[in-house]
Every structure is written in C-alpha cells, then in structure tokens.
C-alpha cells in the first residue's frame, strides 16, 4: 500500500472511532455533574452564611474561655441578624481596625448601656465609664490583659457582628460556651490573694507546654519557660499548674 492510502486508512479509522463515542451523552453527563457540585456548594454557602457556620478561633484575648492554640466553634447567624444578641454572649465580629480580620469577643454592653471598664489593668486600677450609642455594642475579650477591644477602639457598630458563638467542638461531646453576665464578673481581674475556685471550671487549655496562673489575678501564659509578662499576684506564682 502506498503512503497516502495508508494515512487515509488510519485517519478514516480514527474518525470512525471518534464518531462512535457518545459525545452528547458524555457532555450532558459531565454538565449535570458539574451542576450538582455547584448546587451543593451553593447550599453549603447558604447554610454557612445564613443559618449556622463553623469557625476557628485562636489567640490569647479570650482566655480562659477559648484555647490559645485554637478552637473550632459553631456560630449562629440567625440571632445576630435578628438583633437579639444579649450581654454576655461571645460573638464573632469584623475588626473595626482591619475588615479582613474576624475576632471573637464578649458583649459587655448594648446600645444605651453605661459600661465601666478598666482602662489598662496592667498599669493600675483606673476605670472609665462610657455610654454605648444607638446601634453599637461594647465588646471586650475575657483576657483583658491581652485583648484589643472596645477599650481601645470604642463601641463597635452592630453591623460588624457576624454571628454568635454558641458551641465549641471538642473531642468529647459538645460543651456550650459560658454565656452569662454572672460568670463574666467572676473572671474580671481584681487583685486578690486567695485562689478562686471558679477559675478551675473555665480553664480548657490542653497543650501541655502552657502554664496558666491559677490565681484569679492574671491570665498569663508562660510558654516553654519564657514569661510573656510579669505576673503581679500578691502571692508568688509557684502554684502554676502544669496543664
């Protein structure tokens, strides 16, 4: 056979095989599968953004309620959108200083409330009072020694709140976030010389290299032997617990 006729035979065979493949079926099948994936992603987005979302919270500003190394929490979006967030709730909000950062803080005052706060507890007992304007809330971290909150940037507009944290995921069954003004008052820092047993319930730090001062005077973390800030308890902190 000549070269031309051999080439024609090869191409003819390939064209016949290509025509035998059910293109329409494959295209419609893949389109419907892609559409199914798109529908699933849209449903995930709707649930996450409008009903209940999941977030990862880390940092020292909500110690001892939240872990320093991070907690997976469930965020309820409906309460925040409805406007029925209450004092004592832990909320997720966009930081007024950087809109790309989401922070978790506790609400200490709603619009119209007069909030009294310690300006800088590491440097003395000075306290100020502020009235929260309409449409704003006052937020503070539980660990007031290491938290940038309304004491620095003032009351935040309610519109920045993204959701209310109602649940923390642990390896054991869910445990609900401490919500409520009473417990928050127990954790507020006052210099005392006696050990507060209420502190024991809230410490949830699980990494073994972190030490937390069990006296209710400071919520420091001493990581691997290095002190982040001097503890000024009246008693010496030799009772640091190894967690």
């Amino acid at each position, binding site marked *: 056979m000549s070269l031309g006729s051999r080439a024609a035979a090869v191409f003819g065979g390939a064209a016949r095989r290509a025509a035998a493949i059910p293109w329409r079926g494959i295209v419609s099948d893949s389109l419907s599968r892609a559409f199914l994936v798109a529908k699933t*992603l849209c449903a995930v987005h709707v649930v996450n953004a409008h009903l209940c979302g999941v977030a990862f919270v880390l940092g020292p500003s909500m110690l001892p309620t939240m872990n320093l190394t991070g907690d997976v929490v469930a965020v309820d979006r409906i309460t925040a959108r409805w406007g029925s967030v209450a004092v004592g709730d832990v909320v997720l909000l966009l930081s007024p200083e950087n809109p790309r950062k989401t922070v978790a803080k506790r609400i200490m005052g709603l619009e119209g409330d007069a909030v009294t706060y310690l300006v800088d507890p590491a440097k003395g007992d000075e306290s100020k009072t502020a009235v929260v304007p309409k*449409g704003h809330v006052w937020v503070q971290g539980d660990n007031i020694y290491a938290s940038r909150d309304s004491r620095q940037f003032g009351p935040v507009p309610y519109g920045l709140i993204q959701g209310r944290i109602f649940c923390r995921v642990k390896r054991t069954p869910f445990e609900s976030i401490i919500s409520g003004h009473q417990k928050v008052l127990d954790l507020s820092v006052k210099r005392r010389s006696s050990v507060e047993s209420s502190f024991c319930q809230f410490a949830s730090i699980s990494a073994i290299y972190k030490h937390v001062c069990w006296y209710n005077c400071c919520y420091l973390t001493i990581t691997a032997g290095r002190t982040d800030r001097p503890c000024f308890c009246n008693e010496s902190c030799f009772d640091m617990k190894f967690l």
Partner: protein
Amino acid sequence: MGPWNNLWLFTKKSITGIIIGVTISDRYLTFVSVRGDSMHPTFTASPTTFPGSLKGDLALAERFCLDKYRFSNGDVILFKCPSDHKQIFVKRLIALPGDWIQVPESSEILRIPEGHCWVEGDNAACSWDSRSFGPIPLGLVRGRVTHVVWPPWRMSQVERKIPEGRISSY
C-alpha cells in the same frame, strides 16, 4: 399522582433556584433599589407610593470588592448604617484609611483611622453621611455600585467622582 408529582418537581426546582440566587447575590452581584435623595443626580430616588416605586433607579452592585476590601476614592458603595444594622445606605466613598479630609462647614482636618472610610452623598443638602456619624468601619461595606440598570433611559455606568481639594493622602 400526576399533579403532586409536578408540584414536587416545581418545588425542587424553585428551591434550587432560590439557593443559587441567594449565593450569587451574596458573593458576586446584586441589585439594589435606590430610595432617598441623597445621591441625586447620580441616582434618582423612587417615590414611596406604588406604582411610583417602580420608577426609581435600580442599580447593579458587585461584591467582588469585599474579598480584599480594596476601594478607590470616589467609588459609590453600599454599607450598613452604623446606627441601624438593618438599613443599607448608598453613598460615595470620599476618603480611605490614612487620608486627611477637610470636613465641610468647619475648618477641621480629620485623619481617617485605620480600617475606616469617609462617605458622603452627592446631594450634600439632604444626605445623612459621615458629616453626621463620622468615619465608618470598612467592615460595614456591603458592595460597590457599578451600573444603573433600570429605567432603560438612565442605563449607564456609575462614574467615580472626587471632590476637589478636600482630601489629601499624606
């Protein structure tokens, strides 16, 4: 069995449509009806009575800008009202974080703090904006208006406009 089957199919399709519509409206593009005169003549407000409310401007807003919160001076933006989180306002963004702005009607010069912006309406006479409630956090911004899509004789792109001589970036 026939009508129930059709009803079930219709319900499924409409739920799918709603979910997809909500996702697109939350993440990519949305339509916003302009009420209020604070952005005249850029937008013409709709009268509050029906059927006059169909005559107001319908604008297209994009949400891609919310990914990195990068705006330019003079953009028209949507944002949640700082004193009432359920209301959405449409105003023009005049100054970005770090800019110095001269507040009109007083000779004070204000520096826009980090993470905040200054918004003003084009119709200065009846606009409730940053001149009353101060700079707003960028986290309240919900989108950027790019086009007017209704009524057909007002279809156009929304231009960027910066007031002369009132802002400085140093």
